[in-house]
């Protein structure tokens, strides 16, 4: 959460991005230019260009990624929540239909009050992903139409995706 708002110096980010192909570098710099106001931190997720942003900016960044001409992230491929014990990380993997146009957007949310704006108004694919993350991790998505349980039954207690959830316990149904 703390480091998400600081931008890396140019020479450091150049070093990280040296593994990227030219078209991906060009794409990442284009995206970083569009999102200048949000001060994203550039990085790499495997071979996928990655941006780290503040949770409050998630909705406006995603909307810009979908609507800016030349970027047009048509699909939300994946929305993952990762438990790092002191914070959660929400990972959006976006994709336009051209090759080498996959982008990962990451945002860190605090453990005690995990909340992030919902992106269902940008891609309807986010609907079930956000319900799933709410189910399994207890992250709330502000502005989601109905965060009802998706995979778990009504009345299930606890968040089984979290690291702290006991692995081999049984719960009475």
């Amino acid at each position, binding site marked *: 959460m703390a480091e998400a708002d600081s931008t890396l110096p140019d020479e450091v980010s150049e070093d990280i991005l040296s593994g990227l192909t030219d078209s991906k570098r060009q794409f990442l710099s284009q995206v970083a230019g569009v999102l200048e106001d949000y001060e994203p931190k550039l990085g790499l*997720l495997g071979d996928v260009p990655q941006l780290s942003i503040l949770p409050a900016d998630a909705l406006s960044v995603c909307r810009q990624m979908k609507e800016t001409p030349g970027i047009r992230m048509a699909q939300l491929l994946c929305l993952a929540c990762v438990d790092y014990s002191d914070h959660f990380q929400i990972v959006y993997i976006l994709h336009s239909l051209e090759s080498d146009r996959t982008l990962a957007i990451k945002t860190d949310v605090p453990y005690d009050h995990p909340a992030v704006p919902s992106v269902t108004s940008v891609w309807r694919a986010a609907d079930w992903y956000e319900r799933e993350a709410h189910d399994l991790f207890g992250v709330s998505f502000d502005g989601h139409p109905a965060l009802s349980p998706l995979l778990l039954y009504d009345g299930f207690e606890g968040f089984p*995706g979290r690291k702290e959830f006991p692995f081999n316990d049984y719960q009475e149904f």
Partner: protein
Amino acid sequence: MGELVSQETAGSVGDVPERGEPVEMLLNMGPQHPSTHGVFRLVLWVDGEKVIRAEPHIGYLHRGSEKLCEGEQYHQIITLFDRLDYVANFNNELVYCQAVEKLMGLVVPERAEYVRVILCELNRIASHLLFVATMGLDAGAMTPSMFCFRGRERVQTLFEAVSGARMMHNYFRIGGIKEDLPDNFEQLVADLLPLLREDVGESDRLLTFNEIFLARLKDVGVISTEDALDFGLTGPCLRACGIEYDVRKAEPYSIYDRFDFDIPVGLDGDCWDRHYVRVQEMYESLRIIEQALDQMPSGDVASSLGRRLIRPPEGEVYARAENPRGEIGVYLVSDGTDKPHRVKVRPPSFCNLSAIEHMLKDSWIADVVVILGSLDIVLGEVDR
């Protein structure tokens, strides 16, 4: 006062609606229903024959596979991936193995890559044959399923000869495949191909352009290109809308860049197009297998890792592949230990199914089963 009494009397007779007045009825379909292709519940609000609203309920098969992955060593996870999309086991194993290989920078032996591609494409044919069979059954055609299952049986017999199991093979390994490939593997595949082509052709001729089948499927369950992208539809469901997108072509993984094949697309994004795209894909898969057999080198198939316990370096990776149902993605976070920190699967059926509420709105109740069937879901990967 008299007015009030008359209202009460009307209520006591029972809520008989006026002629032409809309009436909502709640209809529950599933979780145990033969045409939901698994344990899936659909609540339908209907007005006569028209579906006003549909509410899908999933999670009946939720086993916490992603959480289970966090407690298993990297090689043990392959079996969990077998059980996600249990109709296309090899394709699932492939994408997981590729994710770990990407993370570790492993090079897979040439021959193993070819064996993987051949098995995955055979699995795609077997999966699509099952789709054609169930699509026919959903639309009321019994006979094509016999031809489809004959073909599928032949593929599974080959799988059994190769891996020892008809399903849940657990055969691919990180960095290669299990070391015991049969000596006559090429011959087995070469013998199977003409038979399989015949089975695919027979079921195709019997069903695809059948007049009743066309009447049941054409212009039913139409989804526009914009909606398809918005809901994250991938694979044959997206291609049926006319978008020529296939991960095997767009971002070739494994050795798919070495083969010459076409991407079949539909025109209207209706149920029949989704059926037709899959039928054409089977012919393309046969083409890929033929080319792979021609190019296949001799050599080793086993991973250079042997049976060692593996500890990939700390890092993250996102691997994508084209499964029979659409694009599967694996987001893997490693913390440098022998067990992954997090495994997130992007299951194709999950996103395809999330569009069902939109697709069923204002459709006829008789078409519900066909529309659901045309998405070709496997609840194992929807619920995980």
